[in-house]
């Protein structure tokens, strides 16, 4: 004990003595190594926390948010739609998903270089994130792949067969999510503005990849599966908005990992994305409640939390490109637009988008993607450079109106891929397994009919 104490006390002076005996070049080299490792430690710490935060968005965040909105007999089935993906997508990602999304392949799909996570280890991948182990980048991106199909489940809640839901999700990840993630974020991807894409789109944290893809696919699911039995004739009130409030607040917190984490470093850009995310969410809450109060006479709690999610969705693509006040504006617009989507538009067309996955994620994601083209500025994000290293202007506010057009093309490609891909996959699942539960199973609820359990056994 005493011996160790003296060693600890002497260690710095020994190091100093060693340093003095080294040449200046060697000391500089040592210093460079030390600085690099310090930066890596900081970035890696933030990215691991961010990865955990994004996983928390799916479970329990989304599971609670969606679970509270369904009827009591479907609470477990709905939570399972989120929870099971934490397992299924993880395995798929390890085998082939990461490689298809982030392997450098064609402009639309990655190759198989990272099959079975081959060569994905401690060494950074400089194309994506030069200061963190590629394994950190891999696990961080996995969390996005988990939540995206979970978002779709809002549209087919209370009536999809569990087996068909599993098959649908695996195929959807393979044929919609991985290609789209590659196009937007993968090296050489068609829409990747920073790594050689032909159509440069800005999507900081997944407005197209996550929210448009899931939201639009959700609409296709809602239309394909049809309405729930008794829709608009029987009462289908949310069974616990309390659960949904907890879930929405966990989503809000987790979203800092989603957006600020997408800086891929513990940098000033991460701070900027954090601020933009928070501001947009706040103004979206107020935007939704304001319109609701005026139209319905009362501001509802469900309206407030729905507005929060709409704001989080809309700021996602913009978060690493816009200043705080444009973020407030983006949130406000999203809150108001999504309110009308889930009230006026849904009831006009009569589709049963059960938990408004399309009305919030599809619409909010589209609003956010387009407004990113308006408000993106190199004052916030200076990573777009020409060959000589000069920082390039980004959006309309930087004097590049064409960027709004580029964003629109990115949006259109996401919509088309989501519609066509989802429709084909649903047909396949329907042919093999049948996508919808039997009418009596639907009446009993998915908890009993699919899982053999009940959510609340208060008498036991």
């Amino acid at each position, binding site marked *: 004990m005493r011996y160790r104490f003296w060693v600890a006390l002497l260690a710095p002076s020994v190091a100093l003595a060693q340093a003095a005996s080294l040449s200046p070049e060697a000391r500089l080299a040592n210093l460079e190594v030390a600085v690099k490792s310090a930066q890596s430690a900081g970035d890696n710490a933030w990215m691991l926390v961010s990865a955990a935060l994004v996983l928390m968005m799916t479970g329990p965040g989304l599971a609670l948010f969606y679970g509270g909105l369904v009827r009591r007999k479907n609470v477990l089935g709905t939570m399972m739609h989120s929870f099971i993906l934490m397992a299924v997508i993880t395995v798929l990602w390890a085998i082939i998903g990461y490689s298809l999304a982030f392997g450098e392949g064609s402009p639309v799909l990655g190759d198989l270089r990272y099959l079975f996570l081959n060569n994905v280890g401690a060494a950074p991948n400089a194309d994506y994130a030069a200061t963190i182990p590629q394994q950190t980048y891999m696990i961080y991106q996995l969390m996005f792949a988990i939540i995206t199909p979970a978002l779709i489940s809002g549209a087919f809640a209370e009536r999809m067969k569990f087996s068909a839901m599993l098959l649908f999700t695996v195929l959807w990840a393979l044929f919609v999510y991985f290609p789209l993630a590659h196009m937007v974020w993968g090296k050489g991807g068609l829409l990747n503005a920073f790594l050689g894409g032909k159509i440069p789109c800005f999507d900081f944290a997944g407005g197209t990849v996550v929210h448009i893809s899931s939201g639009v696919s959700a609409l296709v699911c809602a239309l394909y599966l049809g309405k729930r039995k008794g829709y608009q004739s029987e009462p289908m009130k949310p069974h616990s908005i309390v659960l949904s409030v907890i879930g929405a607040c966990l989503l809000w917190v987790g979203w800092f990992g989603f957006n600020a984490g997408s800086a891929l470093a513990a940098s000033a850009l991460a701070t900027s994305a954090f601020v933009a995310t928070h501001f947009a969410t706040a103004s979206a809450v107020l935007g939704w409640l304001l319109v609701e109060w005026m139209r*319905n006479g009362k501001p509802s709690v469900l309206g407030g939390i729905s507005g929060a999610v709409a704001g989080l969705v809309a700021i996602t693509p913009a978060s690493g490109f816009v200043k705080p006040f444009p973020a407030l504006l983006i949130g406000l617009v999203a809150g108001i637009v999504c309110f009308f989507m889930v009230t006026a538009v849904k009831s006009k067309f009569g589709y049963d988008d059960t938990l408004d996955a399309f009305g919030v994620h599809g619409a909010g994601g589209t609003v956010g993607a387009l407004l990113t083209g308006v408000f993106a500025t190199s004052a916030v994000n200076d990573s777009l450079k020409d060959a000589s290293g000069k920082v390039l202007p980004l959006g309309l506010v930087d004097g590049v109106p064409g960027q709004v057009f580029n964003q629109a093309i990115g949006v259109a490609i996401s919509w088309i891929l989501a519609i066509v891909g989802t429709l084909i996959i649903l047909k396949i699942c329907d042919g093999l397994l049948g996508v919808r539960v039997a009418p009596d199973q639907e009446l009993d609820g998915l908890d009993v009919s699919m899982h053999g359990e009940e959510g609340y056994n208060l008498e036991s």
Partner: protein
Amino acid sequence: MKKIEAIIQPHKLEDVKEALKAIGIDGMTISEVRGHGRQKGHKEIYRGMEYQVDLLPKVKLEMVVPDARADEVIRTVVSSARTGKIGDGKVFVFDVAEAIRIRNDDRGEGAL
């Protein structure tokens, strides 16, 4: 013996219990029920979906008392549960054929 069944506003339950205790009645069974008489319900809106909620939460008290005490109990329940507004509830009175204490097979008013 009379069975007195009172459907009252949930927030008046404590007042009614206290009033009954004061006249020496402490046996009763209570259940949470939903219902409505002339009272109109209210409107709830969830993301634009409107629901007319007309079955409102009420509390049902049931107690069986000797014939001699029935009037007094009814008066006590009515006066302690009254707020004077629509929705205060109703009291129903039934004749009871028999009462049996399960523990020792006592019968009639002695079982109450």
